């Protein structure tokens, strides 16, 4: 069993705009089960951050509890990180975001962490439009505690011991759409070609960006009868819109037929070149996105890709009119109004 990854990397690894190779974005060797979808998601985060030329020390990783929430150890080990309590990552992310608005926030959660114990926190971080990427590594079970059904397990999906799940499932994509999320996407850990551009778009999006990533649990939920297995997911995936992420200052060169394609400008100057897979699905319309989701469910399919985006809505920071400078950069004279002023304030309450 290897506990350490060798130090050697491919000598011709490509470099990004910061002159860094992907290896500068790696983490420790994973201790998850061999074949876990979560590890592929970690690799996609590494790839996306590298491609975006993000400085690793300007990123903060936040997570809750679960195999998924453990996974930030396995990427970006030069970034900030906070492994919080079960279901409470949104509070920590909110606090951190208020304290320093300049960092890139990547939240990593599981279906248990978000849809069971953390459901309340999840709902509120969505409606507040906190500027972050919120990844749900969705395996339909509580992987870390040995595979009990989670709230995202589909009704009728069979556990490894053969029991059918009797309850209706929670679809976090549907919930997020309903309560005002401004970036909603779904993907599959086994499809990095889709996942990496989605992550780049989500990180560049100003506001809350949810990506629900189907991430098979090879040990407890990858058998026949499970609706979150590699095979089942591959058979039922219905690719929604396909996006190409275009960084700031780069021209969009691809040409698509109008009606089938559109260009979306993001707040930071980057844009998305979007190709529709379903003619009726307009990802800038919440209604159309909700219908597309319902249609796919009716057809027993898993809708993936960028499902909904609203690039205009102000984020939490703007709504709350918070200070732009990070708190740790404020000096005493900015934080303390001085004796005179305090006395005059106090006098008002006499």
């Amino acid at each position, binding site marked *: 069993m290897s506990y350490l*990854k*060798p130090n050697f990397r491919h000598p011709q690894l490509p470099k990004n705009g910061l002159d860094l190779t992907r290896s500068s974005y790696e983490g420790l060797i994973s201790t998850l089960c061999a074949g876990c979808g979560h590890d592929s998601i970690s690799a996609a985060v590494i790839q996306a951050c590298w491609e975006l030329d993000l400085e690793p020390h300007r990123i903060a990783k936040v997570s809750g509890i679960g195999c998924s929430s453990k996974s930030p150890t396995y990427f970006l080990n030069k970034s900030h990180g906070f492994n919080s309590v079960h279901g409470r990552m949104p509070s920590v992310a909110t606090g951190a975001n208020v304290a320093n608005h300049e960092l890139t926030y990547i939240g990593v959660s599981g279906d248990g962490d978000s849809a069971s114990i953390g459901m309340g926190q999840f709902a509120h971080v969505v409606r507040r439009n906190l500027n972050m990427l919120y990844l749900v590594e969705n395996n339909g079970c509580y992987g870390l505690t040995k595979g009990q059904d989670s709230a995202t397990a589909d009704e009728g999906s069979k556990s490894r011991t053969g029991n059918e799940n009797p309850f209706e499932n929670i679809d976090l994509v549907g919930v997020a759409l309903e309560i005002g999320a401004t970036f909603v996407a779904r993907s599959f850990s086994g499809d990095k070609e889709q996942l990496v551009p989605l992550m780049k778009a989500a990180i560049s999006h100003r506001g809350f960006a949810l990506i629900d990533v189907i991430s098979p649990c090879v040990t407890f939920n990858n058998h026949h009868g499970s609706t979150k297995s590699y095979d089942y997911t591959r058979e039922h995936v219905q690719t929604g819109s396909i996006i190409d992420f275009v960084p700031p200052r780069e021209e969009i060169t691809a040409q698509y037929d109008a009606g089938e394609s559109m260009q979306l400008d993001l707040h930071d100057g980057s844009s998305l070149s979007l190709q529709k897979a379903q003619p009726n699905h307009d990802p800038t319309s919440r209604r159309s996105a909700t219908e597309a989701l319902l249609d796919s469910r009716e057809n027993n399919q898993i809708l993936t890709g960028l499902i909904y985006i609203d690039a205009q809505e102000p984020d939490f920071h703007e709504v709350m009119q918070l200070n732009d400078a990070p708190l740790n950069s404020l000096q005493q004279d900015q934080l303390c109004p001085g004796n005179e002023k305090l006395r005059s304030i106090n006098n008002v309450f006499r």
Partner: protein
Amino acid sequence: MSTSPTDIKNPEYFHKVVDCQYACPAHTPVPEYIRLISRQQYTEAYVINWESNVFPGVLGRTCDRPCEPACRRGRVDEEPVAICRLKRVAADNKGDISAWLPKIPDQKNGKKLALIGAGPASLTVARDLLPLGYSIDLYDENAKGGGFMRSQIPSFRLPVEVLDEEVNRVLDMGVSTLFSERVDSLASLLAKDYDAIFIGTGAPRGKDLNLPGRKEADANVHIGIEWLQSVAFEHSDKIGKKVIVLGGGNTAMDCSRTARRLGGEQVTLTVRSTFDAMKASPWEKEDAQREGIPFLTDHTPLSFVCENGRLVGMTFDKVKSVYENGKRQLVSTGEEPVYIEADDVLVAVGQELSFPWIEKTTGIEFNEWGEPIVDKVTFQSTQPNVFFGGDAAFGPENIITAVAHGHQVAVSIDLFLKGKDMSLDRPAPGHRQFSTKMGIHEWSYDSSVSNDDRFAVPHLVNEVALVDRRAEVELGFDLQVAFDEAQRCLNCDVQTVFEEAKCIECDSCVDICPTSCITFTRNEAEPALRAKLTVPAEQLDQDLYISQNLPTGRAMVKDENICLHCGLCAERCPTAAWDMQQFNYSVSKACHIPSPLNGSAA
């Protein structure tokens, strides 16, 4: 268009992945003996070498080591594994190997051979054929066996005891030696009752330089290889204080280093080429420089200068190397000739073949350069029962090439005398493959990758080395360093074997691979495929391992180039679609030599 999936059943595919073994002319199973050294099994490590290259102790000190520039470690790390010096560790620390030696039958097979020249080529032929019952007469003009290994390679690089042990081991298998006997006529030998004759006489003539003053200076101008031989056989034991060595190859290095030990105080090596273009191996150049020998590069000799009929120096023209269409031209800089004083000059500018003793009537044909016409596979000459090998066949090479030839000559002679076809009936190379899986994430080899830099072999200090021509300069690794160096080997013979049917395309192997070797992608024509891998595969001499198409329509494509053989892909794979399988490849010999690798116990 797509590229055909890799046929891993063809042993040549995995053979090529073991870069060192593939580059070795004798295809010595390097990683296996390095692992045995890690396990302190020096005797077994030695026997594996001996089966393959006959002179592990000699080669562990002197081999030209074509394996090292080929070593995979050199592509991911600064320097390759010290393969050659690890071989010496096995030789120096081995126990009794007699139990492993092949049995020589009392009952001979009735066939009699003459081997001419007692260098490594002939000795290998003898080693491979004696166990089959052949009777062998070995001729050499010198009093002892070993060929150039004895007469040329100085004892400060190769102690006589090391050479004696390995030469005698072969002679003691029952060679009938006819030493101090120069063969002056092949025709007369052909007239004797030999069933086959092998010519392993090397490239024994050193080239001279006919420049103005050469005749007058003759008493103090020596042909390098003749001089080295006279030192080795103790006919010479001193040289002038000021010595010029002409030439930039390994012979020039040995001449200058020997001169330093025989009284040469100012030994200057002069060479026409640039430093980088010198023929000598980098480590030989380093060793000479360490002994205070300056290299005067870009100097072409013009004349020998004599006073009162005695050599006093030489003049040189300063030149520049100019390359046109890859061909080098030496262009004079037009500066004044450079004069260098000298009491003696050693000419080490090359050697050539010389067969004055092979008569036209023997049926042996030569090409326009005086080289015998020899088949590249069978080593047969134009006279069916006469074979050539070693330097005598295709010109000067090195010991390991002579050994590799020897094995093939032995196979040919045996087939020839059994009336079989020397090409069609040639035995295929042997190979074995087995899983190293011991447990869920456990392998029978040490899969972890050491991050250490190459360890340097300690040297004797000059004060001691330069006063004793016999004192071995390299001291060899101590056992702890040998272990650490052995750990640097990447076990390239433990192959990553992929089984399509098991793969669920989860990407885990792609994500874990430290050197980004694996890509799942649509198969295409090879150039396009190489270009679109995670890291483009630009090293064209390194193969791509391509699977059949998988359910998503993609194929697994692995660039073998920088795989660390760390086994992480196999550890990460949930379905064991990857396995780490040890692959042993061995050149078939005329006879079976017991070795830990071919299943026969001591």
